[in-house]
């Protein structure tokens, strides 16, 4: 009978291929990790669900006329969504610790070594048969080392849209894994004495400094590295809304309504890039390996820079706070605090780690700008 056949042909089980089934399982896995293991649930629940939805056969929800596909085109292809999230990050972030001790910016700089080392790593993988990353691909993969979701999504959507799904998943997964990845590296590179260093209290920061800070950062970025201007611009815009004290309404909108709405949409949209043919490949495996490498190298570089600052300052800096330079705000600052407490039960490093932590956000936005300027077309 005609309609019965029509119906059967429209059924999922009649059309599902193995890849789709596997990707639906991947979506469920991400949801499981998000809920049960608290892996960055704000992003991974929508991404996982988006992956599930977008891989439902026949429905083509991730396609150009499907819902997640259209959201992708409007919000991710244009770069608007990650930028709006970055505005929210700026509005939620207190840069006080960084203003009080600007030298921690160097820790945020050092940790970006993870990014560039991964770039080399991705290019080296091309010597392995089966891998064929372009330089753009490699740069997009490298940014995972920035440990900063919106930056990674922004750069990947510009340089390697096909890899966006895998890169976003890797970035958020490793950010969730920071408490597991970082401590052994931190312990291996520091002595017990170094980990016990008690740091000086941070000085108070005036409101004027807080207001000038975003403008100064943006000005420097505009002069030196305009390719990072969208990212740094929205970050500092959000922060200015927060600190200027006269637009409370807008600051709240950036911190809540906008970031929440956009997070839902962004997650679903990223899910639409988690299709079997791009995700279930050797490439993804490579990306996951490189991502772990990136976080590890970034952590190590940060800690080593911390040790150098420890020496140069005559022992005033606890090298552990260098690990917070990878950003992964505020997870890595909490990890620093925890590892610090292991060494001395009265040594709270959280506020001190906040400086390098937010410095890492700026650092990886700068690195993203460099990669965009040097590999983009």
């Amino acid at each position, binding site marked *: 009978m005609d309609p019965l056949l029509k119906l059967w042909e429209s059924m999922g089980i009649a059309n599902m291929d193995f890849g789709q089934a596997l990707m639906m399982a991947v979506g469920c896995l991400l949801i499981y990790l998000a809920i049960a293991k608290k892996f960055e649930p704000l992003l991974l629940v929508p991404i996982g669900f988006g992956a599930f939805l977008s891989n439902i056969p026949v429905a083509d929800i991730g396609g150009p006329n499907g819902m997640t596909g259209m959201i992708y085109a409007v919000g991710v292809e244009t770069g608007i969504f990650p930028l709006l999230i970055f505005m929210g990050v700026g509005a939620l972030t207190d840069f006080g610790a960084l203003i009080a001790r600007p030298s921690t910016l160097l820790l945020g700089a050092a940790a970006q070594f993870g990014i560039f080392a991964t770039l080399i790593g991705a290019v080296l993988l091309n010597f392995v048969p089966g891998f064929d990353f372009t*330089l753009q691909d490699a740069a997009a993969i490298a940014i995972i080392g920035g440990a900063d979701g919106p930056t990674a999504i922004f750069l990947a959507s510009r340089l390697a849209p096909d890899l966006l799904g895998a890169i976003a998943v890797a970035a958020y997964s490793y950010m969730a894994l920071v*408490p597991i990845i970082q401590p052994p590296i931190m312990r291996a590179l520091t002595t017990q004495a170094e980990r016990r260093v008690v740091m000086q209290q941070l000085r108070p*920061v005036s409101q004027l400094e807080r207001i000038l800070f975003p403008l100064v950062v943006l000005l420097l970025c505009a002069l030196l590295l305009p390719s990072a201007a969208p990212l740094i611009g929205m970050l500092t815009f959000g922060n200015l809304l927060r600190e200027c004290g006269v637009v409370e309404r807008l600051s709240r909108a950036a911190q809540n309504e906008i970031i929440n709405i956009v997070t839902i949409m962004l997650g679903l949209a990223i899910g639409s890039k988690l299709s079997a043919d791009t995700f279930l490949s050797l490439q993804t495996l490579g990306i996951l390996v490189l991502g772990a490498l990136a976080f590890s190298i970034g952590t190590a570089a940060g800690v080593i820079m911390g040790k150098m600052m420890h020496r140069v300052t005559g022992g005033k800096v606890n090298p552990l706070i260098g690990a917070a330079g990878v950003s992964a705000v*505020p997870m890595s600052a909490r990890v620093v605090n925890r590892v610090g407490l292991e060494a001395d039960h009265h040594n709270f490093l959280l506020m001190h780690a906040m400086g390098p932590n937010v410095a890492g956000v700026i650092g990886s936005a700068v690195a993203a700008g*460099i990669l965009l300027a040097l590999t983009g077309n």
Partner: protein
Amino acid sequence: MSPTPMLIESLVIMLIGMTIVFSFLLLLVGILRVMSWAALRISPIAIEPEPMPSSALVAAGGADAAPLAVIAAAIARYRADHAGSRR
């Protein structure tokens, strides 16, 4: 592009990249110092003079739900606790 020249190019990018990152942030360190010095000359008494000690904040922990909001909340709470005498 074949792997080898790409490798060279990526090494160059690494070199340049780390140089720029460091230069950029080092420059920012300097500028921030100048900015703070100037800002404190213009409005010498800090409007929000909370010292930020290594303190009780940590109990706030619990690695969950809204990562970024946590900092904001923690700091807000901290300020609220310590601001009573001033505001």
